């Protein structure tokens, strides 16, 4: 398997590796994939409760080099975006940016899933009945 330069670059220098406090209301965590499938991604975002801007993102990935590169790229892309903007990121954008071959498309799908799962988790904590709860209320609830 020949890898694109960008995949190799992310694999060698993965961005934003790590973890954040799962229990914080500002943090949304997405854990997708399964060990039996050979790929598990955990992507976390830290969202500013007032601006809804993703201020930080972290990931860890068990998977092939393309899966590692896809999630590393995903953390770079979500940072600085609002959650709504981040939901616009499509796996096809990742495929294009990393020049992934067809057999590796599912690795990019997983990265898109991870972004959605992280945002979903954050919304669950912070949005009740379609309304965003105030920052202070969210903190109090915890």
């Amino acid at each position, binding site marked *: 398997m020949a890898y694109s330069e960008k995949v190799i670059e992310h694999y060698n*220098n993965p961005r934003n*590796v790590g973890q954040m406090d799962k229990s914080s209301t500002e943090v949304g965590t997405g854990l997708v994939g399964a060990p039996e499938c050979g790929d598990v991604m955990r992507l976390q975002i830290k969202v500013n409760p007032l601006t809804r801007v993703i201020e930080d993102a972290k990931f860890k990935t068990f998977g092939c080099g393309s899966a590692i590169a896809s999630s590393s790229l995903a953390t770079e892309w979500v940072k600085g975006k609002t959650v709504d903007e981040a939901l616009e990121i499509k796996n096809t954008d990742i495929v294009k940016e990393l020049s992934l071959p067809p057999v590796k498309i599912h690795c990019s799908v997983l990265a898109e899933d991870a972004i959605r799962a992280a945002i979903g988790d954050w919304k669950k904590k912070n949005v009740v009945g379609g309304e965003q709860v105030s920052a202070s209320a969210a903190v109090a609830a915890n």
Partner: protein
Amino acid sequence: MSTVTSQPEVPAGVKLPLYMDNHATTQMDPRVLEAMIPFFTNKFGNAASRNHSFGWEAEQAVDVAREQIAKLIGATAKEIIFTSGATESNNLAIKGIAEMYRERGNHIITQVTEHKAVLDTCKRMEKQGYRVTYLPVNADGLIELEDLKRAMDDKTILVTIMFANNEIGVIQPMAEIGKLCRERGVIFHTDAVQAVGKVPIDVNALNIDVLSLTAHKIYGPKGVGALYVRRRNPRVQIAAQIDGGGHERGMRSGTLNVPGIVGLGKACELAREEMQSETERLTAMRDRLKNKLESNLDFVHINGSMKHRLPGNLNMSFVHVEGESLLMGINDIAVSSGSACTSATLEPSYVLKALGLGDDVAHSSIRFGLGRFNTTAEVDYVADKVIDVVQKLRELSPLYEMAKEGIDLTKVQWQAH
């Protein structure tokens, strides 16, 4: 975080890229090439030409090779049939026996970790009305003799069980299988591709009736192999699958690949002469690699029996690290992985799955295949590099982090996709 592709110091005498995938194929021994060369150039005769010295010379060379091969496995020269390799040998053995003994029965017994050349041939026989039993293997990768006994019935004509496995290197209980087959009057074929030249084989002591081998796994050329077919006690018959000039006692027509055959013969002779010293060397290097990896890394798992195993094989899972990502980090070392991500089908190794391991262990597996041209310095380089890359990838692995925190990964609700 530092880069994943590490560059430990390359010891003197280690040339990169480095080959440690000797179950896939082997580098040809220069002594084999030397023996072959004249048969490409001035000794170009057809071994079937009976009327001139060119033909005689070729035939004589083929006869020498037959002797060399026979001697390695305790057979006689007349019992060796040349083929294009072990895929053909396996096809010829299974199809040829099934066809020849159809009146006696229609039942074939094999096992689940065979090479595809056996499994796919058996599948085709099923389509043609044969019954095939695929025996399971235990956690060591070995069949249980009780299972074999129970599977045999009065319609069983053939048992085909590989000598040593190409992924995990485990050696099946050949003597016991052979004895059982002989007692029941069932023909015993073995795909001995990985075992020939690596461990002592005596077809008579082991009651093997038919045996497949290939040159390119024993430092010989690609595209040439042989099938041993027993001629006495009992005489085994095989229906030809290729029609033509009636070469090889009618069992395999086609002009003989004389240079290839000369190479196969020479490779067998060298393997026999050097088997003992090579076994000692490979075992020491393999154990050194295993010990280094085990003492520097946690969550490692050896796949298959360590006791019944080829000297040059190590198959290890680096749990919580996916195999293809590991291969990418050690890209100046040629090894292979049972991970789904490395396979065209995106399915993890069926051999590792058959051991009853979770798929996650198969995804993390690396096969190291040590061979004649590997050195201790190479083993040390490989060990250092693998340790380094595994550690770095584990910093990236959510599973490793969770396992370290004491989370039982089998209890997590995963979102398989």
